[in-house]
């Protein structure tokens, strides 16, 4: 979505086509999966603080709901396009299938610049958007979640708007809610935890010891910082981290807590006193064992893939590696834990939040973390075994597993009428 030169929907279709060939997917199912089930474009008139009315464009797309209700975030960004939303909805279908949670794939977005809008304007935008897509969403239909520039508060507004329409409280209509209205414990750290659990399984299969592995984390937002913290607690040496301003490096290891403090005070990790500054590009090619891109898309490209020195690439971000770079990493023998597997911890705990909301019974954080670990380990094992059996990369195996689960569900249900 952000500054991508190629069309994300075409990239998503190419991925599907390539996996379909490798797994000899039923051509009828393939044809159906090449189209999103439902795409809604809405115009959202919003009264701005100065009294004028601006009309925004919003989307909600359900790619596939054969395995359960649609699930996927809502993004507020000027670069949101229908094709981008369609692609992300398709990726959500695969992600939910890999971790085997009973959801299909969906995504939404509004073309806007939230940083230029007041909180009141954002609330009116969110409520009107919710009202425009209300026929599409619901705990049994499609469950939105936070994504780029959307947060707990926005989820609370969606939940409230939907609930007012129904006449009673419906916590299960969105996930990523504040705790006070049915959010789940452990949701904040969920994506990072999921990444760490897949890495723990990976190092075991690779015969490595997680202790003293040298880790580089690109991005120090929610996922980057929480992952750095969790890996540090596991005994890893965090030798480099970065954010949008640039990166820092210390071969003796950084204390992620102190870096976080520094970044909170100064607005960036750069200029941290116990490290040297470097660029994001230099950071990616540092000599390390585990490289974890946890920032934005298309960071590892054909121009830097050859210089990557890590043994394991842990894709916490969505789509950090371009297809050309992927081929290079494969030739170099770098073990890739693909995004749709690695960062599925977020949607998994979203699933837990939905289950807890539906049951109106809430679990302890320990229970949530253990259930998350169980799901992530199982998903990793399944993908790893398939990649060995079919002699394909982890990414291809992940896609084969996901597409075959969706295809199975579709074929079992049959085509109506």
């Amino acid at each position, binding site marked *: 979505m952000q500054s991508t030169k190629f069309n994300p929907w075409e990239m998503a279709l190419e991925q599907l086509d390539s996996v379909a060939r490798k797994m000899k997917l039923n051509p009828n199912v393939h044809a159906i999966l090449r189209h999103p089930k439902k795409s809604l474009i809405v115009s959202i008139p919003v009264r701005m603080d100065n009294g004028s009315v601006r009309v925004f464009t919003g989307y909600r797309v359900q790619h596939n709901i054969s395995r359960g209700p649609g699930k996927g975030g809502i993004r507020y960004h000027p670069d949101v396009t229908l094709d981008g939303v369609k692609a992300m909805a398709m990726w959500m279908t695969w992600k939910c299938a890999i971790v085997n949670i009973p959801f299909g794939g969906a995504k939404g977005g509004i073309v806007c610049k939230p940083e230029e809008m007041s909180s009141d304007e954002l609330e009116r935008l969110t409520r009107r958007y919710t009202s425009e897509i209300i026929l599409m969403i619901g705990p049994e239909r499609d469950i939105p979640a936070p994504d780029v520039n959307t947060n707990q508060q926005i989820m609370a507004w969606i939940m409230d708007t939907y609930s007012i329409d129904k006449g009673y409280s419906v916590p299960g209509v969105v996930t990523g809610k504040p705790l006070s209205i049915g959010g789940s414990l452990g949701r904040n750290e969920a994506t990072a935890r999921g990444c760490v659990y897949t890495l*723990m*399984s990976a190092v*075991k299969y690779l015969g490595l010891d*997680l202790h003293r592995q040298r880790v580089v984390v690109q991005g120090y937002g929610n996922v980057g910082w929480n992952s750095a913290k969790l890996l540090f607690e596991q*005994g890893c040496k965090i030798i480099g981290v970065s954010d949008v301003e640039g990166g820092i490096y210390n071969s003796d290891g950084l204390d992620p807590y102190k870096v976080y403090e520094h970044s909170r005070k100064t607005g960036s990790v750069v200029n941290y006193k116990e490290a040297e500054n470097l660029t994001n590009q230099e950071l990616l090619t540092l000599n390390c064992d585990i490289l974890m891109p946890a920032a934005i898309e298309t960071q590892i490209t054909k121009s830097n893939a050859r210089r990557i020195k890590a043994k394991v690439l842990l894709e916490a971000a969505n789509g950090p590696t371009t297809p050309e770079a992927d081929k290079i990493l494969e030739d170099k023998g770098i073990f890739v834990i693909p995004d749709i597997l690695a960062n599925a911890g977020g949607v998994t705990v979203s699933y837990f939040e939905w289950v807890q909301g539906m049951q109106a019974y809430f679990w302890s954080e320990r229970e949530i973390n*253990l259930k998350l*670990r*169980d799901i992530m*380990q199982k998903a990793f094992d399944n993908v790893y075994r398939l990649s060995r059996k079919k002699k394909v990369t982890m990414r291809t195996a992940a896609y084969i597993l996901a597409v075959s689960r969706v295809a199975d569900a579709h074929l079992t249900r049959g085509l109506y009428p």
Partner: protein
Amino acid sequence: MLKKIECFIQPSKLDTIKDAIFSAGAEGLSVTDVRGVGRQRGYTAEEKPKKKVKFLPKTKLEIVVDEEMVEDIIALIKKLGRTGTIGAGKIFVVPVEDAVRISTEEVGKSAIY
């Protein structure tokens, strides 16, 4: 999820059962000599039970496995632990919330396998 199989068997059956359990894929087990009593109140099939409860020597096995293996292990213990009479023992299956391998700090399934 992990499960603990806690079973009480006749001491004479230990040797065959332990080997079979490892062949079935379990990666560890603990054995304790215990004394116990069940519905037979400590009297064998040939004895006439009296009011006084007696303890009989038994061997306790504790095996932690992934839940997928539980049925296989139970089938093995049932087959190999059978004595043809009462007092052959019992099998309990207990949920295990978590496991930690102390040397490597691996957790969950990784701590076992």
